């Protein structure tokens, strides 16, 4: 309820911040399904993000496809890419850092293709046709409608994550993350389970790509396939707590507020805010290796254990 009323209280700048937080929260949650729950640490989610952004944008420009169905098609394109990459990686048993690097390579390949292709066709970047202010066209003059769109998307993914968490598939994801051999020996089809995680994660990540394109109405190779996107997708969940329902959104909150605050207070000294930002990140990762929510859980367990001992 508070989140629904929020944009009417805040100014334009703060609505933008809130939208960014939700956007990174959503992106993190999509990553979290594969990286956090199923433990398949992807370092190249930009591949799906860019795939989604390019699919809906190009369809809109060349075929006049409305961005709403475009977003769904973007998701499907991301999903197909995810299944393809997933099949190759998981079929041949790429695990841990090898999988992470393979994903990075996929994203980089797509980025290089995008660079070459854009130099030839879109030297000024891809600019979406301006259609004015209309819900039907997924274009708004004000930032507030975008806020509501991403709020809805985030809420939907939050709801889905919660449902996965309390069902068999969620436990299977975690089983694979914790110990793949043991999971297999207890009847878990590791390959199939990883493919499901990959499909969900790539589908929702690609949809974030469409949102991004509609929000900024312009797109280039770096914004779509750049390593920065891959890092942003995983930083939130890791900071907030990977493999938890609320971790990614909490992480996105902390990151965004931290980066905005450091920028506001230290913006005068160029680069200093990035140093402070990096320093705080290092501290959190050293002292809370399981993220903020993971750290709280451990504290809670310790407190419980102590209470038991006193009894």
């Amino acid at each position, binding site marked *: 309820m508070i989140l629904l009323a929020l944009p009417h209280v805040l100014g334009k700048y703060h609505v933008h911040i809130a939208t960014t937080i939700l956007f990174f929260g959503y992106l993190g949650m999509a990553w979290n399904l594969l990286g956090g729950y199923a433990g398949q640490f992807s370092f190249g989610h930009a591949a799906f993000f860019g795939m989604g952004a390019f699919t809906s944008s190009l369809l809109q420009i060349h075929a006049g496809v409305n961005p709403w169905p475009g977003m769904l098609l973007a998701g499907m394109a991301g999903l197909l890419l995810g299944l393809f990459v997933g099949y190759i990686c998981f079929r041949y048993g790429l695990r841990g850092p090898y999988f992470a690097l393979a994903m990075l390579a996929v994203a980089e390949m797509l980025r290089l293709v995008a660079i070459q292709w854009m130099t030839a066709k879109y030297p000024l970047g891809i600019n979406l046709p301006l259609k004015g202010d209309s819900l039907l066209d997924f274009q708004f003059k004000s930032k507030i409608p975008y806020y509501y769109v991403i709020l809805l998307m985030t809420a939907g993914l939050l709801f889905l994550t919660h449902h996965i968490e*309390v*069902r*068999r598939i969620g*436990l*299977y994801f*975690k*089983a694979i993350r*914790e*110990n793949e*051999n*043991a*999971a*297999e*020996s*207890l*009847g*878990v*089809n*590791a390959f199939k389970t990883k493919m499901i995680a990959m499909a969900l994660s790539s589908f929702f990540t690609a949809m974030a790509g469409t949102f991004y394109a509609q929000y900024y109405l312009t797109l280039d190779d770096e914004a779509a396939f750049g390593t920065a996107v891959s890092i942003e997708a995983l930083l939130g969940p890791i900071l907030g707590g990977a493999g938890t329902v609320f971790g990614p959104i909490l992480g996105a909150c902390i990151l965004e507020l931290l980066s905005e605050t450091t920028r506001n207070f230290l913006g005068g000294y160029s680069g200093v805010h990035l140093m402070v930002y990096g320093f705080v990140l290092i501290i959190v990762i050293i002292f809370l290796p399981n993220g903020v929510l993971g750290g709280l859980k451990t504290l809670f*367990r310790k407190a419980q254990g102590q209470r038991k001992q006193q009894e």
Partner: protein
Amino acid sequence: MILLAVRELTKTFGGLVAIKNLSFELKKGEILGIIGPNGAGKTTLFNMITGFYKPERGEIHFKGENVTGFRPHEICRRGLARTFQITQPFANLTVLENVKIGAHSRIKSNREATEEALSILERVGLYEKRNELAATLSIGHRKSLELGKVLATKPEVILLDEVVAGLNSKEANDMIARLKMLREDNITILIIEHVMKAIMSLSDRIVVIHYGEKIGEGKPVEISKDPRVIEAYLGEEYVLAKGL
């Protein structure tokens, strides 16, 4: 009725022959022990039966079906489950969640799987520990958890890889009693064990492996007197000195 039949199984790692032309059968309701000195190939045999390794030659039949080369999860879903010598807990999950994963192999519903897992935790003596993380358990409890996870899949045949070794004497006795109870649940058991007291008191029959080959098979009493078995364990000189 023969539940599990292993026929002329062979597995090599590079130049090393881990298992050579090994055959045996497991009958419904029996407890078959597998013994042999370290490195004899016992765990390799388990890894082949449960689908973790592919044999070079030979076949594995379970309930009349040729399951050679099946994936581990397929083997498990057919009713043949195993424990690991080095326990393999899902470390950052609770004890209850660990066992639920096994229960989910045949139960989809979260609530029913939880109920099933709780009743199994009671049987293996871990009910009190249900909400603790598996990583925090002692070795004795870990072995019990290993058994609990496997039982949750409701197997017809269970392969136990050294579930008694490493336990203190009270824990060992509890575990042996628990394994004897499994027979009453109609579970057939194939067990690898180094603790002789356990294997001699549990097994109906014993197969002895040495350098990947079967060197003896029979009732525990016969096996303990077989000179070839004593030689494998204690050396040729011991046999000569004893005049066996």
